[in-house]
């Protein structure tokens, strides 16, 4: 087992990893930027090394400095957390070549999924469906029409060079397809300098369902059930839960088993080890499609931990140390229901403008079934260089209704002053009738905000 681990990250996930290490009797080394000198992870670790200035490019993304820090602290392994260098195959390679174990998948497994094209090919090999689409660029109007006919309307015309939701158009029939095809091409040319477009099936009311994977270095692979992450704002997850209420619907009952198997097939095809997540998109007709695989521990991992009782971060460390996975697929049972709310330092009444600054008063909720994964504390100043998430509030309940009541209770106790947070917004979501019925897709927040923003939030909060 490792004696010392360096955490190549910051914020709440660094705190999370330090906790897992402490419980495994492993000494911890934190790295921090000058902007994070007073951060909680620095105070919790056994040792701390400053690695640069505030901007991530000058600190948390500096492979040379991370390795130097690992060297002078004489660590056995590095845990990369999520974001930053966690899915950087080169970093994984550098660690291994310096005799430092990388707590995550191998660089080979990462490269097997390095981009959309490669992962789609892998999914095809594994026999798992991906969103129907054109094989590559669509060059002519005729090709566009044939492709659309093959996939079936509605379809989405997407710019190859586009991204972040830009350069997309929906077409419901041949007429709108022809118009959309040409418009999209000229818009793409103007906006991205590349007129290339491709076509993909437009999935209405999509549900984002992901499966947690754990694999050891001896070929044992298990999945720990699903998380429903459809509550998103601008493609950023806000609320996640497990199990997914989607699988309670009549035609969806055998999906869990099918999708779990598909997730395992994908992970197997990539020779995956450590923790990872296979993401799917599910439509209202119970069709599911593989989207991508995340080769790291994810923000919302506590939801799965609460429902299965498995400590995923500890498992990552054990697996990296060469231990065999002691949990078999048959051992796993989902107990109860868990929900997570990401608390961001943003003002929901002002278009979610980021609100960095000093936390004045901080009182976290408690009581049965309440878990807080956070680096925040009273007097802490949130640096402006990093993302706005300051806390994760996770609750467990006997069932979904119980969990929702508990989440509302916990949100109402959570006191953070001095900065704005998304707490009132999440409270409003918890009260929303559609959310309560478990009927929602990734359009949920957009629809909620579409009709009468502030009044709606204030009334429900």
């Amino acid at each position: 087992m490792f004696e010392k681990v360096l955490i190549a990250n910051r914020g709440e996930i660094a705190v999370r990893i330090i906790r897992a290490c402490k419980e495994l009797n492993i000494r911890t080394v934190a790295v921090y930027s000058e902007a994070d000198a007073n951060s909680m992870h620095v105070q919790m670790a056994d040792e701390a090394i400053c690695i640069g200035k505030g901007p991530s490019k000058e600190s948390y993304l500096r492979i040379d400095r991370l390795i130097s820090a690992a060297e002078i602290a004489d660590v056995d392994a590095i845990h990369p957390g999520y974001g930053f260098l966690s899915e950087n195959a080169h970093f994984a390679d550098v660690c291994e070549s310096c005799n430092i174990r990388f707590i995550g998948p191998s660089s080979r497994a990462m490269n097997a999924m390095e981009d959309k094209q490669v992962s789609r090919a892998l999914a095809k090999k594994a026999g798992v469906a991906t969103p129907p689409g054109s094989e590559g660029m669509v060059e002519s109007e005729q090709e566009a029409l044939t492709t659309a006919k093959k996939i079936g309307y509605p379809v989405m015309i997407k710019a190859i060079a586009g991204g972040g939701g830009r350069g997309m158009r929906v077409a419901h029939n041949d007429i709108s397809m022809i118009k959309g095809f040409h418009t999209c091409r000229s818009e793409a040319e103007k906006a991205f300098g590349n007129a290339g477009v491709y076509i993909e099936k437009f999935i209405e009311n999509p549900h984002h369902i992901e499966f947690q994977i754990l694999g050891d270095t001896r070929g044992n692979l298990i999945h720990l059930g699903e998380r429903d992450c459809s509550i998103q704002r601008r493609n950023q997850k806000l609320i996640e839960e497990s199990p997914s209420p989607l699988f309670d619907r009549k035609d969806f009952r055998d999906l869990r088993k099918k999708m779990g198997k598909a997730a395992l097939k994908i992970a197997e095809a990539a020779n995956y080890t450590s923790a990872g997540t296979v993401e799917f998109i599910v439509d209202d007709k119970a069709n599911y499609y593989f989207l991508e695989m995340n080769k790291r521990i994810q923000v919302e991992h506590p939801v799965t931990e609460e429902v299965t009782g498995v400590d995923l971060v500890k498992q990552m460390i054990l697996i990296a140390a060469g231990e065999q996975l002691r949990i078999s697929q048959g051992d796993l049972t989902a107990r109860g229901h868990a929900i997570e709310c990401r608390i961001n330092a943003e003002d929901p009444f002002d278009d979610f403008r980021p609100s960095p600054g000093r936390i004045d008063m901080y009182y976290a909720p408690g009581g049965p079934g309440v878990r807080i994964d956070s680096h925040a504390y009273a007097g802490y100043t949130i640096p402006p260089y990093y993302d706005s998430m300051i806390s994760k509030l996770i609750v467990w309940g006997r069932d979904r209704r119980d969990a929702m009541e508990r989440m509302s209770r916990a949100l109402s106790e959570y006191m953070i002053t001095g900065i704005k947070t998304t707490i009132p917004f999440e409270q409003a979501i918890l009260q929303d009738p559609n959310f309560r019925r478990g009927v929602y897709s990734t359009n949920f927040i957009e629809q909620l905000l579409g009709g009468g923003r502030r009044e709606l939030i204030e009334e429900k909060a």
Partner: protein
Amino acid sequence: MDLKDIKAIIDLMKKNSISEFELEKQEFKIRLKRGNLNGPAAYDDAPGVPQYATAAPVAALPAPVAAAAPASATSGDAEIKSPMIGTLYRSPSPEAAPYVDIGSEVGPDTVVCIIEAMKVMNEIKAETRGIITAVVAENSKPVEFGQALFKIRPL
């Protein structure tokens, strides 16, 4: 940038308790340091709480340039801070004499010590003209980014 602009920046620095300022434009780089710098963070802070003064834009330079003279009349001792993480060595080799000691006069390109990282010896330069007044870091010990290595009285 003319003297008027530089004076304006210096005033803003004083007013907002900024001790270090760097600006890089095409064909032009400037770095200003106010006297009496303490600690690794380039901020004058109240105990425990870093202040992020944002009055002046700060662009980080990949390789810091020779500092302009400190503006304030009370020039205290500045610090030579570590630009990297590694193990500090005061001499080129174990038997050799240290690069510098208290009283050594240095120029911007004078090598003051070596920091070793991953078996590579990196020569660390003074980057300022002055006299070494204290040796703060220990020989053969690890140093982190921003850690004070020497105290120097700028000339």
